[in-house]
């Protein structure tokens, strides 16, 4: 490892522009003639649209156009779709209701877009939006998924009877029932995973520009995957064929899943640009983001975990109802199925598992992947149940887990996944040591003297990243392949451009990807530029989500680097009159091993382009592309331990210690990896203690601003103790597993296990806010 190579703690190249205010986000983009859009959104959770009168709005100052869903449909713009087909256990396909980018006959949640107003200024667009008169006939609404399944509940989509989208299962029901019947002990829990709002700090935005002369569209958008956006907008929404549509995702201010999907706004802005003849920019305000960004989680489950007399798990039965909101968002169907139930074996050797999942329409914002996507729900369910079981069985939570750990690999679980590598005992040891787990009793006693309730909780998570291989996800219903592409261009002066289909929105790819090149060729990272986020520059890519950019995106780069290296060595061997197999690359030069004969990297590059003296038959230039399709998912895992002190007088929980011990496989830049873990843990603690999206019974979102939805602030969190003990991933060339989501997956159960331990109760609802904790303490002391 050099000072800029793989494994080095290199400061980020991209920071310069962000710390000087020179970042370029969608809202910073200005195009000549650009006008501003405001959306008129439904104030009702469920209503028929009787009449839309735009006359007054059209006459307002500065208004360029007021457009409706009827016009959009007349122009042939398609409905939004869910790109992952799930079949119910009876073999029937999921029941997808129509989602028009602008509602035509009916609105189904508060925030559903109905009309777009385009005006000279943002202020004028908003003023005119208020003047649009829409007559609604209100219908009864339902926001709770369990209630939506009841007979007589409001019918949200004609296609989905009783609001049931699919009723899906995985695993062996018979074997699991038999295990439960024969068990020495069964732990039973009801597990609720609260609904969250992702809240990337940059609100969503779109700038659509139709160029009449070229008959060509450009869309700047806050996207984690601009190529998928182009593909979907071309193939399904009929905006334009791919060659006439360029999608650019410039600097993007965080995503956490919420910017994977193609939303109505970017479709409508592109269409409205053609319709009005001007470039159209829309930027969400925060309340619009709360109302219309895809939400996360919202599961209600029951679980039965069976043990034999040696405390070994013999079976796990899970029944889950997942709320998907008013429409099926792009990947909504795979989150509570293949990203959730396939992880229900956790780190444990469980011979029989059965999970049943019902997904449901409600009159709420669409629900899709949010950091972790399905895996936090699986981990929360398992790790809360393990903790409860340990208490019931009167054994140490650490030992109960250790007893059940998978210890040999590869390990085939009963729910599809084949774990390739791991050392769960090592993470548990690292976490118990770092947290002084053994010394907890003393600390609890000391806290008690101060009148505080101290508790400790752990969570041993596993996740599946890299979401792949393409053929496998295809067979499970995915509408896309989940490979990644890379192009490495060596310029004539030896500098390098790496074009990648991954997209960085905080992950630091401009640095880590350059480190990979430095490791290989010894070229300084300042001479390596990473190009991403523009469909005109990068041919195709699948974007960044599911912690895939390291394991999949960088593996594609490694493959392209292999090809560049092979050609570079051929050129060097020719120039140095040596055998190609004797050429090594060291410190920015190509050398004949064991001699002092060498040629600097830049000279070899120049030779490739002058082409005066290349091996016979070789094409000039030095540019290679690669597509990498993973052989398997990757399986990061780890152990998190949380320690809390609760003030029984106020119910306030302080996290006094948080330890994370992760196994991420090989690491490119430990500083960036630690940053990912910190951020993930903060979101997980947010879920456990602070955050929750609440709709009232009529479907109004009560938590639609930062005054109502509690975002974790600096004062709510401690500094974290993070470490890694890594087993390289055998399934990709770099041995990387992925680190982006672990923190958000592993932390909520650790926090709740600590709180329930402190209070001496079995369960508490997330978020465990002071009032909830206070009430729980009061209820517990009554008994």
């Amino acid at each position: 490892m050099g000072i800029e190579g793989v494994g080095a703690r290199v400061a980020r190249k991209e920071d310069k522009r962000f710390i000087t205010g020179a970042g370029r986000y969608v809202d910073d983009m200005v195009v000549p003639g650009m006008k501003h859009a405001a959306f008129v959104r439904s104030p009702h959770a469920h209503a028929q649209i009787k009449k839309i009168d735009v006359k007054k709005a059209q006459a307002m100052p500065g208004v360029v156009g007021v457009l409706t869903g009827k016009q959009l449909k007349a122009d042939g713009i398609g409905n939004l779709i869910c790109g992952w087909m799930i079949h119910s256990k009876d073999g029937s396909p999921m029941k997808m209701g129509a989602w028009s980018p602008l509602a035509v006959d009916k609105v189904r949640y508060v925030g559903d877009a109905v009309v777009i107003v385009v005006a000279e200024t943002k202020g004028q667009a908003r003023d005119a939006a208020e003047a649009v008169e829409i007559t609604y006939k209100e219908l009864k609404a339902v926001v709770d998924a369990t209630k939506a399944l009841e007979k007589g509940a409001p019918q949200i989509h004609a296609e989905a009877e009783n609001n049931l989208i699919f009723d899906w299962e995985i695993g062996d029901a018979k074997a699991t029932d038999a295990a439960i019947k024969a068990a020495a002990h069964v732990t039973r829990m009801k597990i609720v995973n609260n609904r969250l709002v992702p809240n990337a700090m940059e609100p969503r935005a779109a700038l659509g520009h139709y160029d009449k002369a070229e008959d060509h569209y450009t869309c700047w958008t806050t996207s984690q995957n601009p190529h998928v956006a182009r593909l979907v907008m071309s193939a399904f929404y009929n905006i334009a064929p791919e060659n006439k549509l360029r999608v650019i995702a410039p600097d993007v201010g965080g995503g956490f899943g919420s910017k994977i999907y193609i939303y109505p706004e970017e479709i409508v802005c592109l269409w409205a640009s053609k319709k009005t003849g001007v470039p159209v920019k829309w930027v969400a305000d925060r309340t619009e983001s709360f109302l219309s960004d895809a939400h996360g989680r919202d599961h209600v489950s029951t679980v039965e975990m069976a043990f034999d007399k040696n405390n070994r798990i013999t079976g796990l039965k899970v029944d889950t109802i997942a709320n998907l909101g008013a429409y099926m968002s792009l990947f909504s169907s795979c989150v509570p199925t293949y990203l959730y139930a396939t992880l229900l074996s956790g780190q444990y050797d469980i011979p029989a598992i059965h999970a049943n999942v019902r997904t449901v329409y409600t009159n709420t914002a669409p629900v899709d992947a949010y950091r972790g996507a399905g895996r936090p729900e699986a981990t929360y369910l398992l790790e809360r149940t393990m903790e409860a079981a340990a208490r019931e069985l009167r054994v140490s939570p650490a030992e109960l887990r250790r007893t059940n750990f998978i210890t040999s690999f590869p390990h085939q679980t009963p729910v599809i996944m084949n774990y390739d590598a791991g050392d769960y005992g090592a993470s548990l040891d690292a976490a118990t040591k770092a947290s002084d787990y053994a010394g907890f009793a003393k600390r609890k006693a000391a806290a008690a003297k101060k009148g505080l309730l101290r508790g400790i909780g752990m969570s041993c998570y596993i996740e599946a990243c890299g979401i792949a291989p393409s053929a496998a996800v295809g067979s499970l219903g995915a509408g896309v392949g989940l490979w990644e592409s890379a192009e490495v261009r060596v310029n004539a002066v030896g500098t390098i451009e790496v074009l990648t289909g991954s997209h960085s929105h905080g992950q630091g790819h401009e640095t880590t990807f350059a480190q990979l090149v430095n490791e290989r060729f010894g070229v300084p990272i300042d001479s390596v530029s990473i190009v991403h986020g523009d469909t005109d520059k990068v041919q195709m890519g699948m974007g960044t989500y599911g912690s895939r950019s390291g394991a999949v995106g960088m593996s594609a780069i490694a493959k392209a680097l292999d090809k560049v290296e092979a050609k570079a060595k051929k050129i060097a061997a020719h120039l140095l009159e040596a055998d190609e197999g004797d050429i090594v690359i060291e410190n920015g030069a190509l050398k004949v091993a064991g001699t002092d004969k060498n040629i600097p990297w830049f000279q070899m590059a120049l030779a490739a382009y002058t082409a005066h003296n290349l091996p016979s038959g070789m094409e000039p230039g030095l540019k290679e592309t690669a597509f990498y399709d993973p052989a398997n998912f990757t399986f990061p895992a780890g152990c998190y331990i949380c320690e809390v002190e609760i003030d029984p007088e106020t119910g306030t929980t302080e996290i006094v210690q948080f330890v994370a011990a992760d196994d991420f496989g090989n690491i490119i830049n430990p500083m960036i990896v630690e940053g990912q873990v910190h951020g993930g843990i903060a979101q997980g603690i947010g879920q456990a203690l602070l955050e929750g999206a609440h709709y009232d019974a009529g479907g109004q979102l009560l938590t639609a601003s930062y005054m109502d939805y509690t975002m974790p602030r600096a004062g709510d969190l401690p500094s974290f103790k993070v470490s890694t003990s890594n087993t390289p991933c055998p399934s990709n060339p770099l041995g990387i597993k992925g680190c982006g989501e672990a923190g958000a997956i592993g932390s909520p159960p650790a926090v709740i296990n600590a709180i329930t331990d402190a209070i001496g109760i079995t369960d508490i609802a997330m978020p465990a806010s002071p009032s909830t904790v206070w009430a729980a303490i009061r209820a517990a002391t009554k008994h």
Partner: protein
Amino acid sequence: MSDVSLMVNGKRVSGTAEDRTLLVHFLRENLGLTGTHVGCDTSQCGACVVHVDGKAVKSCSMLAVQASGSNIVTIEGLANGADLHPVQAAFKEHHGLQCGFCTPGMIMTATDMIARHPEGLDEATVRAELEGNICRCTGYHNIVKAILAASKTMAKGAKGKAKQAA
């Protein structure tokens, strides 16, 4: 419409704006200073913090016309030419940013915080005083680290200057 005249990053600027125009929108749209960001509608997130007459202010919480006559420093005006301000340098060194969206506000708040605590800062104070700035990426761990480091660097710098003056 009202006339607005300001000193921004050491330069006198003027323009006209609708009375309802917030300072942040004037900076971004009239002056093209897009480093100052808008992350919420309720003055909670702090992405728009600038310095108004030497104090950290959320530029979404005042009208452009109210700011007329003030001396404003935005993130674009913090560095001394090519030399980063110590707070900017510390955010980079300690990985105090990821997506970069909250970063300008964080840095402007931190600079003000350090100036108000010449006696130095501790972790609890930094965390408490970051109440008005939300970050979704970093979990604040490295932001706190960066601010504490910058505070130390600036204290040393101040001592050095005092010695030179003596």
